[in-house]
Every structure is written in C-alpha cells, then in structure tokens.
C-alpha cells in the first residue's frame, strides 16, 4: 500500500505545482498519468482529475487572492459565462460526437500555442472599455521589483464568449478548459499573464467542484486514488503559488506553450484512439 501511496503522492505534487503556475489545474497531467502509468480506466481518471482540479484551485488561490494576483471581479463576471456553457454542454452531451469536439479542442490548443509563442511580455492597458469600467474590473499587480502596476481590462463580451466555449467544452468533455480561460483573459481581455493564470486557477475550481460533487454523489470516484491525489495536488499547488510571483513572464509563456502542446496531443490521442 505504501508504494502505491508514494507513487500517487509524487505524481500529484508535480501535477499540482504545474497546474497552479499555469492556471490549468492539475487534471491535464493526472488523467494521462493515471491512464498510462497506473492503468486506470478513463472514468476513474476523470473522477480523480476533477477532485485534483478543485484541490489545485483551492490550494493555489489562498496565496493568489491574498497577494492580489487573482482578479476576483473578473472571475465572477466570467464564471457566469462558463457556468452557462457548462450547463448547455451537459445537455448537449451525446448530441455532438465527442471525437469531433476532441479534435476541435486539440486544434484550438495548437492555435493558442501559436498565439502564445508570437506574443511577447504583457500588454498593460491604461484605458479600459466602458463595460469593464462599469464592472470595476481594473486591478493592480506587483512587478518583479515590487512596484504596483495598474492594469485595465477590455473586450469583456468577447472574453465572455470564449468562456462560454470553455464552459461548453467542460460540460461536453469533462475537462477544466483552463487553457482557454487563460487565453481569453491574456490574449483577448489583455490581463497580465500572471493575473490570467491566477484568475483561471480560481475559476476552474467552481466548475470542477460542481462536477466532482456529481461524481461523488453517484459513487463514481475511486476514493483510494482520489484521496492521496487530493493531498499531493494541494501540497504541489501551495508550492506553485509561492513560485509564480517570482517567475518571469517569458518563462511562464514557455511553460504554457509546452502544456498547450501536451493537451493538444492528449486530446488528439483521445479522439483517434476512441478512449
């Protein structure tokens, strides 16, 4: 038993750490790792993954919110869009062929990777659009030398539209869609990348929490796997939340691109192998 526990804890600590600094949760690593290395069926891996996303989100958000990296109001506005997408997605499940969605998602991840590679640094805006100003979405973040930088937010409807798609993908495919959330905030709404990552981390807990409750209520979570994964992921996320403020934006972009390519490969693999 001890050997299994140590393996699961080690896997989960790594997933939580990278999930926290990238804003993607830990599910993107937990699912393939459990399927490939622990020989778990997809259903068991997805249940543990949902739990791990909740744990990453909660663990990392403690420090991110306290230190001002999470934009709480942006999260609350965009959560309306993701919840809408997730509910629609849950009802559409079975109507749209999963293989089409998985391939579409893989293509979107590749496009996101391209956008991320071609973008340099952060676009800090000094003037927000009227809707963002009415919703008071602007914020302040410290730079690497500790000086506070004020940023404004734009393109809320467009960002919201992409969040509906992210929610739709969550509802249909049972994934966190953190990558789409980060892209929407970073590329479309022009939030600083670290704020996008921290805010995505905060948001993914809500949709994953609702999904995890359903899985738990149905008895579809293997507690023997999910419990050590939850503990390990929380520890990893707490460590990740300490590291993110000290990372250079360019380093974070490289981590993000690698993860996007991994997600694209995973989704492509899921679609083509019919898992």
């Amino acid at each position, binding site marked *: *038993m001890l050997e*299994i*526990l140590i393996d699961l804890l080690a896997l989960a600590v790594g997933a939580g750490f990278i999930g926290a600094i990238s804003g993607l949760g830990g599910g993107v690593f937990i699912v393939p790792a459990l399927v490939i290395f*622990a*020989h*778990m*069926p997809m*259903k*068991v891996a997805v249940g543990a993954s949902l*739990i791990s996303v*909740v*744990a990453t*989100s*909660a*663990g990392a*958000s*403690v*420090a991110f*919110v*306290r230190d*001002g990296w999470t934009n*709480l*109001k942006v999260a*609350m*506005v965009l*959560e*309306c869009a993701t*919840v*809408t997408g*997730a*509910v629609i997605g*849950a009802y559409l499940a079975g109507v749209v062929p999963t293989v089409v969605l998985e391939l579409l998602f893989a293509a979107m991840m590749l496009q996101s990777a391209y956008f991320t590679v071609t973008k340099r640094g952060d676009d800090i805006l000094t003037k927000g659009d009227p809707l963002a100003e*009415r*919703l*008071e979405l602007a914020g302040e973040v410290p730079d690497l030398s500790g000086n506070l930088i004020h940023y404004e937010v734009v393109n809320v409807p467009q960002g919201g539209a992409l969040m509906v798609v992210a929610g739709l993908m969550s509802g249909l495919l049972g994934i966190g869609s953190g990558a789409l959330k980060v892209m929407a905030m970073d590329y479309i709404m022009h939030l600083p990348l670290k704020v996008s990552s921290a805010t995505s981390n905060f948001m993914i*807990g*809500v949709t*994953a*929490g*609702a*999904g*995890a*409750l*359903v899985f*738990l*209520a*149905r*008895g*579809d*979570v*293997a*507690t*023997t*796997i*999910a*419990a*050590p994964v*939850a*503990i390990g992921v*929380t520890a990893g996320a707490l460590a990740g939340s300490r590291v993110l403020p000290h990372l250079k934006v360019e380093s974070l972009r490289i981590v993000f691109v690698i993860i996007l390519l991994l997600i694209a490969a995973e989704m492509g693999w899921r679609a083509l192998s019919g898992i």
Partner: protein
Amino acid sequence: MPKREEDRILREWTPIILRSILIVAMVVLGAGLVLTYTFAPDYYVERYQAAQHGHLIGKEPVGLLFDRVRQGNPHAVLTIGLFVLTLVPLARVAFCFMLFVRERDYTYVILTAYVLAGLIVGALAGSAG
C-alpha cells in the same frame, strides 16, 4: 460602503474561507489514509486493483456514510474528506453572494446568484442523471 472596502473584505476573507475548509478536508483525508494504512492496508490494495478494472463502490446514502464514519470505517472517512473538499469553491461563491447582498452591490448580486443557481441546477441534474 465604498467599493474599495468591499474589495478589501473580499480579498481578506476569501483566502480565510478557502484555507479553513481546505485544512478541514486535508485533516479528514489524512486521518482516513492513516486509518486505512493502520487497519485496512489490504482493503486499500484490493480497492485500488478493483478501480483498475473500473469497479467502483457505487452510490451510498449519505446517512449510511456518516454511520460508517462513526464506526471508524476508513473508506467512509476518505469519502467525507472528498465531499468537504468539493465544497470549497461552492462556499466561496456563496460567501461572495452574501457579501454583495449585504453591500447592496446589485450587479454582483445578480452575477453571483446566477453562478450559484447554475451550479446547483447542474449538480442536481447531473446527480439525478
């Protein structure tokens, strides 16, 4: 109350709520694993291998779960720990909703109420399905 004060309360209290529930969940999960390791290590390996074949315990009435926790059943303790963990984000949205109601910030009352309603409807529809 000025918006800055509302933001300060959000920023101070949200981490406290997250951390408090997270600590409870981790303590319960940790206790569950220690109980399992001490009293039922073979059962753990058996359930792990069953999960590899897709065999899960299935739906259990919540009342029965609490009865089994009182009897010190490690599996029930782990399940309760996971339930507590999943409540973290929902508790956070509920807290924001109550704060905005208190502050009469109606835009955000509507937004958080919408999120809460969506989550509850989604969870009920999902668990019934």
